[in-house]
C-alpha cells in the first residue's frame, strides 16, 4: 500500500478506496521499535552452545591391545571401554561405543569369533566380527548373557562381570575357534574348549610353585601378563618375579620353566619351537635356544621397561616405556633401536602387531597413540 497524496496528515492510496494515518502508523512503530529493542536485549542473553569433538585417540585414552584377524580387519581395545575397529588394514579406525566402566586389556580374533578380556575378570565374546558382544563366565553356568550392541548410537549397559573369578585378566590367546587360554592377576589361568561357553580355572597353586625365599618375603601372588601357544599343545605364560610357565597338554597343566630372582616379565615370543624371547621390567630380557630348557640374558640397550616382543621369521620388534622400539632383522640375534619420531613427553607402548603377511607394517599402541610404521622405514 503506497501513499501517494497528502492531506493534513492523511495519505490516500492510488485507488482512493482506503487511507492510512501516518500518525497512527508511526505511533504503532514506536511499539515495534521498543519491541525490537526488548527483543535485542533478550538476544544478547542467548547462550552459545558448546560443541563436542571426538578424536580418534585422545590424550587420556589408553590403548592396551591390538589384534588383526587378517590384513584388513583389526581391533584395538583399552581403558574406559576404549574399542576401535578397522576394516581397511588400519587406514582408518572407527570408535565402537562400549561402556566406559570396562577396562579392556586384550582382544583376540579367530575368524568371525573374538574375545575381549579385562579388569574385574570380564570376558566379552562375539560370533559376528564384533557387531554384537556378550559376556562369558568362568564356570559356564552363570547368569544369562547380556546382548551388547556396538551400534554407533548405543552405549553398552553396565554389566557386572559374571565370571566366578573376579581377577583382572591381562591376555587371551585362542589356538582355534574353540580352544583358548586367558591369564591375569594372582596367577589366574582360565581355559576353554568350547569357544568360551565354559571357562575352566586351571590356575596353578602359587604356594606350590613359588620359591620358599619369596614366600618368606611375604610374596603369595604372581600376576601373569602374557600367554602364547606355539601349536595346539605347547604354550607359554610369563609374569611377576621372572615367572615362566609352560604347558605341553593344551594348557590343562602348567609347569615352571623359571621363577624367582628376575624382575617381572611382561611378554614372550617364540620364532619356532626352540628359539624364544621374553622381556620385562627395566630392560630385562631373556632368550632360549632350546625350547625353554634354559634361559639366558640377552642385551637390550635400555633401562626402560619392555612390554611386548613379537618375533616372526626374521623380523622381530620390541616396544616399551618412553615410546622405545627395537627391531631385529636377523631373527632376533641382534636388536637395534628405532627412532619413534615423537616429541617428549614420550608415551608408553604396550602392544605391537606385526600385520599378517606381505604388508610389512607394524602397528603400535599405547597411551594416547596408535602408531603405524612401515618396516624398514628407519633404516
Amino acid at each position, binding site marked *: 500500500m503506497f501513499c501517494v497524496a497528502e492531506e493534513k496528515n492523511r495519505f490516500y492510496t492510488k485507488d482512493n478506496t482506503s487511507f492510512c494515518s*501516518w*500518525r497512527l502508523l*508511526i*505511533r504503532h*512503530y*514506536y511499539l515495534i*521499535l*521498543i519491541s*525490537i*529493542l526488548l*527483543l*535485542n*536485549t*533478550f*538476544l*544478547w*542473553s542467548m*547462550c*552459545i*552452545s*558448546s*560443541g*563436542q*569433538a*571426538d*578424536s580418534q585417540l*585422545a*590424550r*587420556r585414552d*589408553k590403548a*592396551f591391545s591390538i589384534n588383526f584377524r587378517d590384513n584388513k580387519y583389526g581391533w584395538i581395545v583399552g*581403558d*574406559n571401554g576404549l574399542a576401535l575397529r578397522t576394516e581397511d588394514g588400519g587406514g582408518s579406525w572407527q570408535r565402537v561405543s562400549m561402556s*566406559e*566402566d570396562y*577396562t579392556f586389556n586384550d582382544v583376540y580374533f579367530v575368524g568371525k569369533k573374538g574375545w575381549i578380556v579385562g*579388569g*574385574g575378570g570380564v570376558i566379552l565374546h562375539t560370533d559376528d566380527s564384533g557387531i554384537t558382544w556378550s559376556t562369558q563366565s568362568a564356570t559356564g553356568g552363570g547368569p544369562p548373557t547380556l546382548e551388547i550392541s556396538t551400534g554407533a548410537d548405543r552405549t553398552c549397559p553396565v554389566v557386572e562381570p559374571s565370571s566366578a573369578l*573376579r581377577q*583382572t585378566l*591381562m591376555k587371551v590367546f585362542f589356538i582355534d575357534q574353540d580352544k583358548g587360554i586367558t591369564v591375569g592377576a594372582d596367577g589366574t589361568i582360565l581355559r576353554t574348549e568350547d569357544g568360551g561357553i565354559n571357562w575352566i580355572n586351571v590356575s596353578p597353586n602359587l604356594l606350590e610353585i613359588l620359591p620358599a625365599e619369596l614366600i618368606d*618375603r611375604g610374596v603369595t601372588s604372581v*600376576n601373569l*601378563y602374557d600367554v602364547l601357544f606355539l601349536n595346539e599343545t605347547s604354550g607359554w605364560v610369563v609374569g*611377576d618375579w621372572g615367572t615362566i610357565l609352560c604347558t605341553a597338554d593344551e594348557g590343562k597343566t602348567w609347569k615352571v620353566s623359571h621363577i624367582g630372582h628376575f*624382575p*617381572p616379565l*611382561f611378554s614372550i615370543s617364540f620364532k619356532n619351537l626352540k628359539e624364544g624371547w621374553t622381556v620385562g*621390567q627395566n630392560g630385562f630380557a631373556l632368550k632360549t635356544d632350546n625350547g625353554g630348557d634354559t634361559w639366558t640374558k640377552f642385551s637390550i640397550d635400555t633401562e626402560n*621397561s619392555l612390554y611386548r616382543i613379537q618375533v616372526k621369521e626374521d623380523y622381530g620388534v620390541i616396544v616399551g*616405556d*618412553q615410546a622405545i622400539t627395537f627391531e631385529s632383522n636377523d631373527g632376533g640375534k641382534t636388536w637395534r633401536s628405532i627412532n619413534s619420531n615423537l*616429541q*617428549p*613427553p*614420550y608415551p*608408553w607402548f*604396550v602392544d605391537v602387531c606385526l600385520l599378517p603377511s606381505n604388508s610389512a607394517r607394524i602397528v603400535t599402541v*599405547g*597411551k594416547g597413540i596408535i602408531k603405524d610404521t612401515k618396516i624398514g622405514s628407519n633404516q
Partner: protein
Amino acid sequence: MFNKIATWVIRQRHITLCIIILITAFFVYQIKNMMIRTELSDLYPSNHPFIKIHNKYKDQLGSPFKVFMMLSVKDGDIYNRETLEKVIRITDGLDAIPGVNHNQVYSIASRKIKKTKVTEDSVQSENLMPKVPDSMDDFRKIIHTAPGILGVWVSRDEKSVIFTAGFIEHLMDNNVIFREVRKIIEDESDANHIVRAAGEPILMGWVNKYQPEIYFIFGVTFCCFILLLWIYFRNILCVILQIPPMILGVIWFLGYSGLLGYNVEPLTLVIPVLIVARSLSHSVQFTERYLELYHENGEKDVPTAVIKTIEHIFPPGLLGIVTDALGILLIAVAPVPMMQKLAYLCGLWAFSNIITGLLFTALFVTYCPSLMPRNIANIVATEKGLVQKILGIIAKAGYGKASFVTFAVVLILAGFTGWQASKVHIGDVNPGSPIFWQDSDYNVAIDQINKSFPGTEELYVLFEGPGPRALENPGLLRTVNSFQRYMEQTPNVSRTLSVTDLLQPIYRSIYSGYPKWETLPQNNTQACVLFNSLFARAAPGDFSLYFSEDVSAANVVVWYKDHMGTTLRSAIATVKTFIEDKKDLLAQNKCTVQLASGNVGLLAAINETVDNAQLLNFILVMGSCFILCSLTYKSFVAAIILMIPLNLTNIITLSIMNYLGIGLNINTLPIISVGVGVGIDYGIYLLSRICEESHLLENGAYSPEVTIRAVKTTGKAIFFTATTMIAGVIFWYFLSSLRFQAEMGLMLALIMALNLVTALVLIPVLVNIFKPKFITKKLIIVAG
C-alpha cells in the same frame, strides 16, 4: 510551588548556606575514612550458586586468584645450573610472600611435585628437584619420564618453567604481592632469562600502579573544564562561579565513601568524573538561564532573576537529576558488591547535585550581584557563532518535509544498528585481560604462559559423595574420570586434573609399573589401598587441590586458554550437559556435581549475574524514566518521544561496542545504565523549552517555530553540557594506560555525543510530525 520554595530559599539564603557548609564540613571530616582500591571479594555476586560453592570450599581450595610466573631461557634450554638455581630461588621467593598458601606453591622445585621410582619390591616417591641436580642429562631424562611434568610444569620446548602460587584470601594484599613479584622479576631477569607474571593479584597490582596517572588525568580534565567554561562564557567571573559547586560535589562524594565505608574502585573512576561534568552542566544551565532572565529584566534585580531562574530551571533540572541518579542507582540490581557500591555512592552523589549543582549555584549567584559580567548580551545571544549555525541546520532538519526524511533515515539507522547491537557479547571478548591493551606487559605475559602451558584460567568442578571416604567408591572415581575425558574433548580445554590422575600411576607403580595397571581400582578395597598409599607419602594439605580432607569430595581442575565470555558460557554449558547426560550414573553413585570455583567459575558467575541484571536494569531504567516523564508532562506521548532518542542512542552504542570488540561485562554494564540516565536530560530540557515556547504563542496555536527557537536557545546550553561531559571523559581515552579506562572514556564520550545529536534532531522531528497535544497544555515543567 517552585516559586514559593525559591522565594524562601533566597530570603533565607544565609541559613541555607550555613546548613550546606556544615554538611560539607562533616563530609570533609569523613574523607579520612575514604579508600581508593579494588577489593577482590567485591567482584563476587554473593547470592550466585557458584559463589556459595566457592565459599564452601575456599578454605580447602584457597583463593582462585593465583599468581602465575614463568621463567624463560632465550638461548638454550632450562637444563643448566644458572637457570635451575633461579627456579629454586623463584619458588622460595613465592613461598615467602605474605599471605601465600604454602600448600599451593607449585613448580618443579616445590615439594608438591614428585617423581616416583619403582624398584623390584617397592615404590619410592621423592621431590622432583630438591636441589640443583648434579647431572643435567639425568635431570632431562627425569623430566622426560616423570608423568605430568613436561608440558605442565616445564614447557614442551624445554625453554620455560612455570610457577603458581595460591593465597589465603583474607591474608592476601594485592599491592604486597605485586611488589614482591616485581622484585623477584627484577632480581632474576638477565640477558638470557625472562621472567613474566600474571594472575589476578598481579593485574590488580598493575591497576594500582597506574593510580598516579589517574590523578594526572583528573588534572587535565579539570583544566579542560575551565577552558570550555571560558569558551562558553568568555568571562572569568562566570568561570569562577562554576568551580565551587563542582568542588562541593566532589567533597560530598568522597565524604559518602568515607561515611559508608565503601572503597572507591579505581577502574570505574570514569563514572565519578562524569558526575562532576553533570554537576558542572547543571550549574552552567542555571547560570546561562539566570543571565538570560537577568538580561531580559534589564540587569537590575538579582534576587528576582534568581527566583525566576529557580522557578524555570528546577523542574527540568530536578527531573534530569532524578533520572541521572536512577540510572546510576539501578546499577545495583546486579548483586555484585562492586557494582552496588558504585551505584550507591554515585547515585547518592548524583542526587546531591540538586543541592551542590543547582541550589548552591543559585545561592552563590546571589552573593555576587555586583560582579555580573559585562558581556551578558553576547552570552545569551542566539544568532551568533559556529554553534548557533550548526544548531540552525539541525533545527531546519526538524520540520516540514525534511522532518520525514530525517525520520526515515533514523528508522533505517535504528534497524541496522539494532541488528548489530544484538551481536554484542556478554563477558570479555579478547583473550587476556580487557583492562590492559593487548601489547601490555600483563597481556604479553598471559599470552606467553598460555602458549607454553595448559593455561592460567582454571575452572573447579566439585564431585561430592555421600559422606567421608566416599571417593573410595570406584564408581565415583570412574564418574570423575569420565567427566575429565568429556571435558577434554571440548574446544578450549587444554587439560584437566583430579584425584584420578594421582591414583592411576600409583596403581601402576604398585604392580610392577605395567601400563595395563594404569587404571582406576576395580573395588573399594583397591581404592582404599591407593588412598592409603597416597597419604603415606604426603604432608598435610598436599592434596587439598584434589579432594576434601575427609575424602568425601573430589575437585576437578579444568584449564582454559582464556576467559572470554564465549569460553565461559561454553564451559558451564558443557558441565551442565554432562550432569544431564550422566544423571543416572551420578544418582547410582550418590554423587552431586557442584559448580563452580576457580577464576573461571567466579568469572562465569559474574557474567551470568551481569547477563541477568542487564535486562532487569534496562527494564527498570527505561520503565522509571518512562513513568517519571509521563507524570511530569502528564502525557505518555511525551514519555515515548523522550524514550525514542534514548533507545536509539542505546542501540547505536551497543552496535559500536560490538564493532570495537567490547563486551558487556561487570565494567561496561554501568556505562550503559549511566548513559540512559544522563542521556535523557537533553531531551527533557529541549522538550520543556518547546512547551514553554509554544505557551508564548498567541491562542496556544502550534507552529514549527517553537522547535526552531528551542533548538537555538536550549540547544546551545545542551551543546555546552554535552561538550563538558565529553571533555570530562574523553581524556581517559588519550591519556590512560589502562585499556578499560580508555575504552570506557571513549564509550561515554560517544554516548554523550549520540544523546546530544539524537535529542536535538529527533525530538523536533517527532514533535513536528505528531504535533502532540501536551505541547500546548499548561505544564509544571518549563524550559531550561
